[in-house]
Each structure stands twice: as C-alpha cells, then as structure tokens.
C-alpha cells in the first residue's frame, strides 16, 4: 500500500504565523503539502474544542502557532493562549490523547524558514507515529449501530 500521508490541521494567528507562512511562500521555500492552515485573528481565539474536533474528523496531527511572547498584535492574546495550552496539554496527556500529535509553536511574520521547518518536522514526526487510529476508533464515523452501557 502507498505510504501513509498524515492529515495535519494548523490553527494559526493572522498577524504572525499566517504572515510568516506567506513569507515562506514569497521566499519560495518548499515544504511538505500535508498541512492545511485555518486562519484566526489571534491564538487567544483558538478554542481547545477545535483541536478535539480536528481529531474527531480524522486529523493525524495538529499545529497551533502564533506570535512570540510580547509580539502579540493584541498584546496578550498569546499569553492567555499559552496558559490554556499548558493546562489543556496536561489534561489531554492525562486522558491518554497522544500529545506528540499536537505541535505548539511561535512563528513570527519574519520566520518564513521556521514555518517550513515546523511543518516538515511535524509531518515527519506524525508519519512515524502513523495514523491516529485510537481517536478515529472512538470517533466512529459513521456512528455504530448501538451503544449499550
């Protein structure tokens, strides 16, 4: 069978990482095509539920990225986000969600090369981990016939 191509969803802020990824493009730096970006105003907007939804719908990996500390366009959105991530990661790990599949990163508007590197290293890592079957099993699409207690 063909090599496993991980599906990776990326949640990024508009002002730093999205712009950084634009710079990767204008600099014509090539990287793996597995990642799809969804744009947010700020990492502070990124709802933890979205990460779970991504896994529900079959993502094998997730990248969450925004402005470096003190560079937030909104001064502190990324600080709030960071504190939530700290706790959310702990919770996921405790429940047994494979946190190696969630890559958190700061990529500034000037770090086009870093973005390419974040994507490539994540893709490689997820490729090694393989498809996230544990979560896919639980997500069961289509819904299985019955669930008894």
């Amino acid at each position, binding site marked *: 069978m063909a090599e496993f191509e991980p599906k990776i969803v990326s949640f990024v802020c508009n002002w730093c990482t999205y712009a950084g990824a634009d710079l990767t493009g204008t600099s014509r730096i090539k990287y793996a095509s597995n990642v799809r970006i969804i744009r947010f105003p700020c990492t502070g907007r990124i709802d933890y539920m979205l990460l779970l939804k991504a896994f529900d719908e079959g993502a094998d990996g997730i990248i969450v990225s925004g402005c470096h500390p003190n560079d937030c366009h909104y001064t502190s959105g990324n600080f709030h986000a960071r504190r939530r991530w700290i706790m959310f990661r702990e919770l996921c790990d405790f429940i047994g969600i494979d946190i190696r599949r969630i890559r958190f990163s700061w990529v500034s508007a000037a770090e086009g090369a870093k973005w390419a590197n974040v994507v490539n290293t994540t893709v490689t890592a997820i490729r090694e981990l393989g498809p996230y079957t544990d979560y896919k099993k639980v997500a069961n699409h289509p*819904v299985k*016939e019955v669930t008894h207690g």
Partner: protein
Amino acid sequence: MNIDKRLVRKDSLEKLFDILKQNSKTIFAPVSKNGKISFKAADNFSAIVTDFVQTTQSSKDLAFPRTEKILDFSKSKEGISVKPFDYHSIPEMVIWGIRPCDAMGIGELGAIFNWDTRDEIYDSRLSHTTVFAFSCNKADESCFCTSVGGNPGNTEGSDILFTQMGDNGDYLAEILTEKGTAVAALATDLFLKTENQEKEKYLADVPVKFDHKAISVKLEKFFGSEKWVEQSLRCIGCGACAYVCPTCACFDIQDESHGKNGSRVRCWDSCGFSLFTLHTSGHNPREVQSQRWRQRIMHKFSYMPERLSVYGCTGCGRCSRACPVDMNILEHLISIKEVSI
C-alpha cells in the same frame, strides 16, 4: 398457553448459559463495574452477579439503547440518499437475570412506543429477545412493586421466570411463552419435571405502601398543589432517575453529519432537564424544577394510566437509589397519598 413448571438444578444454570451461547445468542446479564450492576453482554457464566436486590440500570437499554442509529444518509447536489435501519443488525438476545419488576416494565415501555404508530425498531429488538427473569427472594426499603400491581414473583413480561427455592436451592422455572418454550427446548434435559411447584414461600416480602389506582385518581385534582414545590426543592434536575428507570421512554433525535455523510441517532433524553421543553422563542412551559418533577409523577401515575391504561412505574425503586439528592419516589407518593384535598 398454560404454564409449564420445571425444576432446574442450581448447577445446571451454567450449562444452560453455555448452550445458549452455542446457539449464538447474545446473553445480557447483570455484571458489576465499580460496584454498580448493569446488563452487559456476558461471555462467561462466572461474570454474572446474582447477589443483589436490584441492578443500578434497568434492562431497557437492550430494547431501547441509550444510543441507537436509526439511519445513515448522504447528501449530494442531486439530493439526499438514505440507508435505512438495518434490521439484520439486531442480534438474538437473552436477557438473563432481570427482576419481575423489570419484566413488567418491558410491557409498559412497549405501550409508549406503540401507542399509535408502532415503533418498528423497538418491537423487532424485543421480538429477538427472550426474557429470563429471576424472582426476588429479598427486597430493600426502596422496593414497592406490590404498590403498583406487581410482586416479587410476578410472571408478567417474562418468557421464563426462575425462582430459587431457598438459599443455594435449585430453581423453579416457569416457562411462560412460546419464546420461553423454544429456548428451553434447546436444553430439554436441564428442565426437569417436578412436583414441588410452590414458589410463594421463597419470595421476598414487599409490603404494600399505597394504592396506585387511588394515587392516579387523586392526581387528577392535584396539578395545582403546593406539594410539588415542597417535594422538589432539593431536586437538582439531573437525568439519573429517568435513565435508570425501566419505563422512561423520552428520547432525542440527533443528526451526526460529517461533510456529505451522516447518521441519524436516537438517544435518551429526560423530562427532568431544564432545556427539555425550552422553545426557540425563549419560552419554557416548564420553567422550574417543580414543574418538571410534577410532570414526571403525573406522566407515570396519571397520564399513562389515562391514555395507555398502564402505569409508568414498576416499583423497582431504582430512581430513589440513584438519586444524588435523595428524591425518594416512594416517600413522595406516600406523602401525596396522605394529603387530603
């Protein structure tokens, strides 16, 4: 049909279990987890627990699963194509070890699901199910089957009713239905002839606490009573009572779609939830918990008898046991009985 009473040796139960399995029956029996007993598909006899007054959850989950897919659909520009419910997915089931009150509940639940249009899915699950009930030789302060027309040795709703004759004694098996006969026929040599057909003396003693007919008569004039508020102040509005109840039938229909594909799912709901009756307009006809509590009691003891001529309560006492705030239905029914209007 006339009841065929047989003797089944205590140690034959395991053999019977194995024979049923060999005949590819899925056997749902009381299994314990974290000290709570529920009906689960049991692979071996040893997993089955017997030493209990009542299971935490009723057996309704088997004919009326908490979550049940009723169809799959797929959208496209041309329209929607539906893959209807697959009746072949229903296994041949034996419910092993339920109490007579639960067996009686099966009928009451059926009355709701079939009160006008028949609920095909519920009915066909039931038609693939054989009910092995075990009479009660003990009861606790929450039990009140005798107050709602049942009793510890009640045969209603069972295909075969087993009554253990004394501690560690053998069982008297009352084969009550065609289905029962058919299943018994798979292991004829385990169902022995017996002269001793007396079971009453082995049954638990459950004193009658109230007359359910009198209660429903009273409820007709009780809607506006202060009692509802007084009784339900401590109710926190969870769904525990409804979900452990063998006769609560409320459900919700949910579509779970993912892109163009999706499934329609039936899942449990409860009239105790504050959003149960919330309208899009913001209006909620049952705004406060007392109204929801009233609905629960009225539905079981007034509306159902009135419309379906069955009661919505089997006296199993589960709701009282499960309630986190000690809303004891028996206590409340007695207090309703005692108020004079």
